[in-house]
């Protein structure tokens, strides 16, 4: 078959009446509560996982707003006090010619978080609304989010290092601002949102669409054959199944 997503038609453990351990990949009969090998709690599909995803997602987004509005760093030098927000600090670095570092900061603290909110939101909506699309691409997007999400913590660590290192009484003093806490919370909440998402549901929703396509295609073929041959399709053949919704 040449339709998209049809190249690999795997049977899921759920369809086989089994439950797979998400930790050690061992399979068990559906009703098993805990993996007998590693002790992981087993749930074939967690009905509440989407609510958890959206709860953490919303919390992360709410923490991300003050993270950008309040100063991340408070720098005290002989010439006065300077407050820097995340974006302000990166702009300062760029003005001093440190383009590469400014880029790293902007990428890790602005591009990654915003991209992460968009990606998790898209993946969750695609599953919930049954959007069509390539499951493999969605899976890769999910893996990218899981891999790259933690790297946003770099800005929190930079603040921690600067604040512990630059303590030179009157000459220069760097202290963390309130945005550091908000930003760290935002990173942690979005990591939890990504981990609450059950990637197996990506494949369930696409497999359900594929199955519907198949039955619709069979109906179309049957109808076309009927028109060409002018004869009713013999009973018992797969083409006689009732039309899909």
């Amino acid at each position, binding site marked *: 078959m040449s339709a998209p997503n049809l190249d690999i038609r*795997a*049977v*899921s*453990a*759920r369809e*086989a009446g*089994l439950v*797979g*351990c998400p*930790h050690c*990949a*061992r*399979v*068990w*009969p559906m*009703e*098993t*509560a*805990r*993996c*007998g*090998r*590693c*002790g*992981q709690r087993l749930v074939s599909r967690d009905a509440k996982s989407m609510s958890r995803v959206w709860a953490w997602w919303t919390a992360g987004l709410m923490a991300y707003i003050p993270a950008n509005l309040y100063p991340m760093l408070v720098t005290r030098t002989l010439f006065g006090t300077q407050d820097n927000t995340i974006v302000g600090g990166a702009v300062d*670095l760029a003005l001093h010619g*440190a383009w590469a*570092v400014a880029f*790293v*900061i902007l990428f890790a603290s602005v591009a990654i978080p915003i991209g992460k909110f968009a990606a998790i939101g898209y993946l969750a909506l695609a599953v919930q609304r049954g959007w069509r699309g390539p499951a*493999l691409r969605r*899976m890769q997007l999910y*893996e990218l989010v899981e891999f790259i999400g*933690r790297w946003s*913590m*770099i800005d*929190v*660590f*930079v603040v*921690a*290092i*600067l*604040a*512990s*290192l*630059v*303590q*030179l009484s009157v*000459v220069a003093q760097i202290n*963390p601002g309130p945005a*550091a*806490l908000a930003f*760290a919370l935002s990173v*942690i909440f979005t*990591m939890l949102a990504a*981990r609450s998402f059950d*990637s*197996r549901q*990506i*494949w369930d929703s696409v497999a359900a669409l594929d199955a519907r396509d198949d039955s619709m295609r069979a109906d179309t073929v049957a109808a076309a054959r009927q028109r060409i041959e002018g004869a009713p399709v013999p009973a018992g053949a797969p083409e006689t199944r009732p039309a899909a919704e």
Partner: protein
Amino acid sequence: MPQTRPPHDLDDYIACPACDALWRVREPEPGGRTTCARCHTVLIRPRPGAILQIVALGLAVLVLLVGALFLPFLEIRVRGFSNASSIFDAALAFSGPELVWLSLAVTATIIGVPMARVLLTTYALAPLLTGRGVLPGGRRAFRWAEELRPWSMAEIFILGVGVALVKVVDLARVEIGPAFWMFSALVLITLLQDTFTCRWTIWKALDAASPAETPKGLTP
């Protein structure tokens, strides 16, 4: 005495943890890998001697981590003023009532979690090397060590040090202490250790060392 081994035929199957596709287990050659044909997740990647390497590298990480905590990390000097900072100072940089939680989180992600992962892995896997059975709680220890993996952020911290140094280098002279190099080394070793870890193979080894218990709700 009821039989304690789980149903035997299910042992021949593997469910992809990422997409739930069910496959019959096909073990690759040592050094090769088996991937899920549907979502391309690596399922099995055995390496000869992996357990010995994981335990040995884990002990190296432990030594480096303890050393890095007590040796000087970074020091800056400017116009006669100077300040030295250890890893603990960086971890505890956030003071004040609301930022204290942030200090705890940073301490956990750069010191606590990496150390806990090494201890848990060693506790679970070291007895296998001496041919003894799995210690009580050993299975749980290995699962926790793996679950903690995303929360171990030593490698992000060391890159953060790099960014911070670029910011400070115009302002002052910075001296890099031995703890910095030790911490960098332990980051590299941990990355190497994680690539040696094939969960499926290790769980097989744990099963072979002492049989798994029958889960609740299953009649053997």
